């Protein structure tokens, strides 16, 4: 199996023998995964120093396809595992890929605390607004009123704005791209990787199989068109707020470096190592 006719970047960063991936036709996750890889390539990171961590769910299959140190953890706990990795060896570039449920339902507590600490982890959420792997139940980002197998009469929950949540909790770099706006997505991940601190990048994905079908959003192409027509860059809206009306904001939202957690801890080690009695 595997790819016999694939690009250099695929050969370099993917575990070819693990391909093709198992995401549904039309799923946005493959595109988003590719933006992660291209950002790593653009920055020329040493493959041996990159760790990719995920939780559970569709998004969390991504690390298996990528040729780095990869860790597929328990549901919602990816950031907690990643925190241990980063603190134990701050030289590593730690990237966490999570889904919307993974990051903000079962893992919501870890998200806000990793952001609060400003630990140098680049977190990328593949947000498809639904629980795909378990078959289409609503998530904390499923829009109000939309349908899901566990919201057969329409979802009465209010959705999270994940970027606002992460920024409010203390993330020092925050941005949102989409599976349609792949170049923007790549650029945001590059910036996130360069930010010495907790970076949060939301990637709007699409799930034609469950969310799309249940909510009559059309096929994958139609759902991509929706992203194209309904997303507007923050810089445009900053100049003309009218253009942001009823649209989804994308782009770089926040970039304000502060003291990073592992560096802060190193200061303590430098100051107290061997000073105290053992």
């Amino acid at each position: 199996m595997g790819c016999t006719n694939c690009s250099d970047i695929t050969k370099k960063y993917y575990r070819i023998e693990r391909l093709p991936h198992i995401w549904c036709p039309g799923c946005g996750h493959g595109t988003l995964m590719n933006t992660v890889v291209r950002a790593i390539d653009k920055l020329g990171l040493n493959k041996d120093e990159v760790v990719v961590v995920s939780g559970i769910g569709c998004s969390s299959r991504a690390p298996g396809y990528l040729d780095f140190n990869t860790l597929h953890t328990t549901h919602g706990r990816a950031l907690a595992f990643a925190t241990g990795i980063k603190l134990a060896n701050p030289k590593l570039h730690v990237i966490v890929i999570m889904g919307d449920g993974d990051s903000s339902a079962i893992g919501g507590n870890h998200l806000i605390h990793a952001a609060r600490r400003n630990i140098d982890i680049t977190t990328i959420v593949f947000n498809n607004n639904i629980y795909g792997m378990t078959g289409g139940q609503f998530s904390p980002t499923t829009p109000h009123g939309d349908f899901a197998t566990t919201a057969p009469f329409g979802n009465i929950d209010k959705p999270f704005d994940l970027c606002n949540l992460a920024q409010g909790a203390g993330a020092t770099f925050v941005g949102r791209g989409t599976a349609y706006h792949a170049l923007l997505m790549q650029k945001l991940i590059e910036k996130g990787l360069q930010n010495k601190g907790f970076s949060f990048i939301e990637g709007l994905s699409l799930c034609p199989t469950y969310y799309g079908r249940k909510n009559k959003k059309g096929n994958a192409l139609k759902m991509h068109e929706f992203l194209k027509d309904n997303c507007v860059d923050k810089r445009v809206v900053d100049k003309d707020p009218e253009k942001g009306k009823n649209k989804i904001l994308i782009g770089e939202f926040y970039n304000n470096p502060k003291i990073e957690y592992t560096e802060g801890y190193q200061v303590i080690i430098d100051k107290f190592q061997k000073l105290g009695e053992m």
Partner: protein
Amino acid sequence: MSSKDGYKLVQGNEACVEGALAAGMRFYAGYPITPSTEIAEISAQKLPQVGGKFIQMEDELASMAAIIGGSLTGLKSMTATSGPGFSLMQENIGYAAIAEIPCVVVNVQRGGPSTGMPTSPSQGDVMQAKWGTHGDHPAVALTPNSVQETYEYTIKAFDIAEKYRTPVVLLMDETVGHMREKLKVKSSSEIEAVNRKKPTCKPEEYKAYRPDEDMIPPFAPFGNGYRYHVTGLTHDETGFPTNSNIISGELVQRLVDKIEKNIDDITYYEEYKMDDADIVIIAFGGVSRATKSAIDHMRENNIKVGMFRPITIWPFLDKQINQIADKAKEIYVAEMNLGQYFLEVDRVAGKKCPVKKINKISGELITPEEITYAVTGGRL
């Protein structure tokens, strides 16, 4: 607190940290909970002094996850908690078992269920230490009964974790965690810490979960040039998930076998006045100290009674209990729960001799008098 001759007067919880540091602990992630809190506090103070890392996580699930991350990156890692926190850690303890990540989990037990009695001793987590996480998996748990032993068996817990690539539970009770006793610490030359074995092959040939003949796969820390995949899913020798019924069965069997078939290597116990004992009291942790006192008293009154104290409480010491059952006329199991360890003793010994329970769940130690009363039927 300390003196030049290597003796200190410390709490069990402090001895635990001393032992962990002596064993090479360099990463601690935890969440404070009574009566284990001092372990976090002292780790926070001491780890940076040896270049190690301490982090207070947002909860126990995160703590257990973080020490797996720390261990995967090559640092000897530990967390400590008490009853409810131990419950929260269970899913990721299972992860450590299937992904074969060495780590030490200290549980200074408190009364339960639920929030229970935070400041009172209990031995209510005996079964949770074995079956707390789901699925079949190996369980290793050690139960010290003194400050000195807490130090010694924390070191052993790390050694077992490293050697067998498995989570190891140090199952303390509040009595031991909070008592102050003399502790003799070892010099670094006296400690031969065990370290997980490393791969000798080239990175491209490395199969992260291919076991050697001893059933244990060599371990390459993340960041050392060996790129591989780790998952909590049932996986093949490459570390990638598999749906093969054959491979999944073999994996879990190997995880269990690598402990069960090496049980003699991790078996620790104490026998007290057992040579001619007709009556055997099985007790562990804080209760074993009261039991000794009761035995001394009964011996003075010519009752042939002795104690068997499992220190390795999991895996269960079938062989030793069997031998006891062959000779004893009566076995008592004294524990601060309603009979958790009793169930296992009865399983092995029950067909050979009567096995009886001595239990207390009031948040107080079982007293020597209560043990004597139970064994003699009130005659003494």
